């Protein structure tokens, strides 16, 4: 089966020339969940942003291919690219508190994509939105549709964003640390909800996170990133049993565990950091940067 999203040798650089992503390649197939893990600043979110075309102004894709549903997005013209992304991909953002427009009611923010891109009638779109809100277990969806974001809690807002992401039946969803801004009790529910929705709709899901515990629960495959370079790409099961790269092993060892609360916090050793840093420099030299 061919991948729905395939990224080949993607390079993103700061406009001054500093590399942000270094030859990133990965692929996600329909019905699969691919995890992207790494430290803060490793470039996890930037991969998602490069795919969706929402990179910050100071960054630009300098090389590589982004194949979405058999088309290389970089060869398309901006308007056509926007239309394609809008019709087949969606984003579950990191912070539900800033991801909904505070000045507009919930309803139109869910139906927007259906009306704008798929050309649904308003009534159809609203019926669909109500159905979706029920699917993400929101009580009293009628009232919620007419609410403003500030009237709802963070967990509710994240459910709404999930509903909005699934609204147009996208084939790819990029979840950018969707549980980071929520408290731990809600995190678990939201995670289960995303996993359920993904399985039911057969969507390809690119799951960005820095939490290996989360990855182990929802992902099928994953890529470990360091300084914008993929250090290891692996099947879930294999990764947790035998991580190949020392950095991956160190990350796994650094994950706190409930079973051993005292001894489990092992920082990544300096020798391992030196080794990945060397690999990154080597890569840059070979690439002529």
């Amino acid at each position: 089966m061919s991948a729905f999203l395939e990224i080949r040798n993607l390079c993103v650089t700061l406009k001054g020339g500093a590399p942000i992503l270094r030859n990133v390649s990965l692929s996600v197939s329909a019905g699969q969940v691919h995890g992207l893990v790494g430290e803060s600043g490793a470039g996890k979110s930037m991969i998602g942003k490069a795919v969706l075309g929402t990179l910050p102004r100071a960054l630009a894709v300098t090389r590589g291919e982004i194949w979405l549903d058999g088309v290389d997005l970089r060869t398309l013209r901006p308007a056509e690219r926007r239309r394609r992304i809008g019709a087949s991909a969606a984003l579950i953002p990191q912070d539900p508190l800033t991801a909904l427009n505070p000045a507009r009611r919930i309803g139109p923010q869910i139906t927007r994509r259906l009306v704008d891109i798929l050309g649904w009638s308003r009534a159809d779109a609203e019926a669909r939105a109500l159905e979706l809100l029920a699917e993400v277990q929101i009580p009293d969806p009628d009232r919620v549709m007419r609410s403003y974001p500030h009237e709802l809690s963070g967990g509710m807002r994240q459910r709404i964003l999930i509903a909005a992401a699934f609204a147009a039946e996208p084939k790819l969803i990029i979840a950018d640390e969707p549980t980071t801004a929520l408290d731990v009790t809600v995190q678990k529910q939201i995670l289960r909800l995303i996993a359920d929705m993904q399985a039911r709709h057969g969507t390809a899901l690119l799951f960005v996170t820095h939490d290996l515990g989360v990855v182990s629960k929802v992902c099928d495959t994953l890529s470990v990133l360091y300084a914008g370079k993929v250090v290891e790409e692996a099947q879930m099961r294999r990764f947790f049993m035998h991580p190949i790269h020392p950095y991956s092993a160190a990350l796994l060892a650094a994950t706190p565990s409930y079973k051993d609360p005292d001894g489990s916090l092992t920082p990544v050793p300096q020798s391992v950091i030196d080794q990945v840093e060397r690999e990154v420099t080597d890569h840059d030299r070979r690439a002529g940067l």
Partner: protein
Amino acid sequence: MRDARGDVKRPIGLRLWLSGGWLSLLVLAALLAPWIAPQDPLAQDLFTSRLPPFWEAGAEPGYWLGSDSLGRDVLSRIIHGARLALIVALVAGTLTCVIGTALGLIAGFYRGWPDRIISRFVDIWMAFPPVLFAILLIAVLGTGLTSIIIAIVVIDWTRFARVIRAEAMTQGAMDYVASAQVAGRKRMGTMLTEILPNVLPTIIALLTLEMGIAVIVEAILSFVNLSISTDSPTWGGMISEGRTSVHQAWWVLVFPLITLFLTVLSFSQLGEGLKDRFDPVLR
């Protein structure tokens, strides 16, 4: 489930009542000027010159706030002057707001070269001393209502452009703007549906502030005799005339001054009060 902020009841508040009350009174006075003014604001009568206000000895009935050195009724002139002041406030304020906001939104949301051009213009514009600039403009355009309005718009659009640009930049970095872009919205559509509603409270506050400023600028221009011809009553003109006879007839200077002061204060207070009410997060 429901955030408590949604249930907060916000009373209208003394500030809104007082400022709104004064401005409504002024609007009524301006609309009904010919019927409620006790005297003809232009009628000169040297027998009734420099009459004191009603509570002082020697006051004449019908001249509640006294008369000036040409025997014209101060109250009637203030009431008629409100017409001009309010026309300038509304028309100049609104035009300034529309032009400044449009340019500010474009600069702040599109960034790139439109921003560079607009921002450089704003920088250059703000280097001119505004009152001198206004006087210069009137000298070129000639006196009259239209010239005053044009002068105010040309000088003051930068105030809106700068503030709205900054707000649009903050809003543009929000996730919901990115979501709208991913959902295939065109940039213009995103600007109007996602950004504009969020900067509306600021626009309202600036607009009312600008109306107050427009009234002041008009008064300054009448004070230096560059407004409308001297026979139509203006507050600035009255202040200018009253200044010369302040030792003999203080009321000719003081009453228009108080009116001007209260009006400008009311505009700015109204803006502050409305800004709080329209803030989407506090709504």
